[in-house]
């Protein structure tokens, strides 16, 4: 009994001190994840990074120098940005109003299930579907011609808009579901409070919802953007991979599997990662200007 008392008098035990820093038994569960990340992400990344500094010509920065001197290569950065930025923005802009409507629905489960489907189908299947739908004999052209809006079939495919549409189709469900979860996380009584204080729908959105949503929307934007930026299958299948939709992953693919220059391919992959990182850091940096915390009106 007295020993216990003395132990207490000495101050907190090692376990208590660790717990105070957030370290306890459950923390150990992180270890398998760390191992996985090290093995599947960090190691290949470092390997690729090293590889990118061993170009065929023997110089340290040869690959990077070549990439940024050839418009055919460095142009892919902007071609990809030209696709990924508007697509992500459009997805987000469509997702927000729909999420606001859906948040009030009772049968959300059915809708979310329907929306998860395109995600599970994957980009290749969607691109193939588009080939039929938008093809010269597809429903799109045939119905527009039947109504008289078109006289000859238009070619949506094999160009910028083909990839754009495919990215919207495959990216939207993901963007929407994330947005919906952020929107429904906002306590509806906040909207009620704003309304009784005289705020109309627009003011409620501007003053209450938007500031509370911005951090979540920023994350949604980043995740959707990264997804769109690494587009490959649809850029080839429904785009114009030699010209307008020669995205950066095509350049990497060609370097690796057509020129067999793995070092160059690694360098392109690094550049691609750097561009994504730059955008993500910029967006998340802006996020810190906003309130980040629980979006509820009461505590406890």
């Amino acid at each position, binding site marked *: 009994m007295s020993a216990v008392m003395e132990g207490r008098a000495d101050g907190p035990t090692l376990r208590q001190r660790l717990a105070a820093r957030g370290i306890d038994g459950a923390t150990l569960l992180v270890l398998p994840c760390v191992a996985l990340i090290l093995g599947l992400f960090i190691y290949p990344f470092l390997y690729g990074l090293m590889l990118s500094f061993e170009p065929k010509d023997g110089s340290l920065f040869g690959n990077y120098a070549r990439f940024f001197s050839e418009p055919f290569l460095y142009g892919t950065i902007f071609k990809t940005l030209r696709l990924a930025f508007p697509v992500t923005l459009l997805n987000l802009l469509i997702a927000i109003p729909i999420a606001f409507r859906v948040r009030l629905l009772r049968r959300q489960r059915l809708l979310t299930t329907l929306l998860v489907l395109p995600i599970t189908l994957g980009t290749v299947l969607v691109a193939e579907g588009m080939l039929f739908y938008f093809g010269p004999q597809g429903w799109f052209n045939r119905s527009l011609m039947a109504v008289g809006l078109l006289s000859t079939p238009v070619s949506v495919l094999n160009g910028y808009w083909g990839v754009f549409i495919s990215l919207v189709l495959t990216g939207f469900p993901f963007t929407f579901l994330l947005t919906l979860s952020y929107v429904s996380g906002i306590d509806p009584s*906040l909207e*009620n*409070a704003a309304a*009784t*204080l*005289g705020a*109309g729908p627009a003011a409620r959105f501007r003053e209450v919802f938007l500031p509370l949503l911005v951090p979540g929307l920023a994350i949604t934007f980043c995740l959707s953007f990264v997804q769109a930026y690494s587009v490959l299958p649809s850029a080839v299948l429904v785009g114009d991979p030699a010209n307008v939709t020669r995205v950066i992953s095509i350049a990497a693919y060609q370097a690796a599997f057509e020129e067999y220059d793995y070092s160059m391919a690694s360098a392109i992959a690094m550049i691609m990662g750097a561009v994504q990182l730059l955008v993500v850091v910029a967006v998340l940096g802006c996020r810190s200007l906003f309130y980040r*915390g629980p979006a*509820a*009106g009461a505590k406890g």
Partner: protein
Amino acid sequence: MTVGSTTFKQLHLQGVRREFDAFTALKGLDLTVERGEFIALLGPSGCGKTTALNCIAGLLPVSGGRIMLDDRRVDVLRPEERGFGMVFQNYALFPHMTVRKNIGFGLRMRGVPKPELEKRVDAALAAVRLESQAQKLPGQLSGGQQQRVAIARAIVVEPPLVLMDEPLSNLDAKLRLEMRQEIRRIHQSLGSTTIYVTHDQEEALSLADRIVVLRDGAIRQVGTPAELYALPAHLDVADFMGFRNRVDGELVGMEGENALLDIEGTVIRGRMRTAPAGGAAAGKAAVAAIRPDDLEPTGTADGIPVRVEAVEYRGRGFHGVGVTASGTELHFASPHPLERGAAIRLGADAGRVLVFGDAR
């Protein structure tokens, strides 16, 4: 221009109903509130108090009936068009705005110029004693402080009708008394009309001009605090007004105003409040309701015999619990201490005993 920003003479609820699927939360409320009145809406948890406020504020559409300001119909208007102030039961403070911004929100929405806005926010902060917390976010405040921000935010716009949903429930006893006076003072200085939800009878009695007792979505009684305190019209209302003892008995006859009730062999006198179905004939079952403070040991051979079960010291006197022969617990007051297990008799003034004949 909101309807509420113009003044009104009377607020009418006419058969206001509200249904949630198959469940009827409000079963047709009829009530007229005069301008400047302080109304307390009193009732047990789940009786529909919040629902009633939400319907008045426009946050829930009514399923039937009408809400009128004089002769203007307001139940069809959106909440921002009604312009009623509301203090939410869960505060609903904007988590991303400082206390100052929260309180200034309504004024900003009404386009009040900045210097005046600042002045009024300062006054509101002072009224709820939160001057030192103005720059904090709601998440950094205690529950009671949040509650006071919610009060300040609602009253700073000086709405003609203020709806408060248990605004003091989270405060300690001392602060609750202070805020109670402050709410009453603000109500009077603004000349506003207040509907104040509470389930604390003391709060209702001390604040309100009139009390509306709600039970299971229906109004049980409306009256001044004195009326309700002395003569509740219903056993439920009596329950709320502190008539803690309910004793089953059998009517034996009438003696003028008073009913004679046989309780386990002892006849006591009480004021007849509601007659049993089919008239107050002898032999009908009835319930006597007595406040513990009014029930005292008689010291004579009169009164209901009980065995003393427990006695507590209450400062000014003693609070006892006695058990009758049939096992009914009776709470009573005693000026002097009593032995546990002692056999005594309890009695009360006829004027302090209420007899209800229609209790189920």
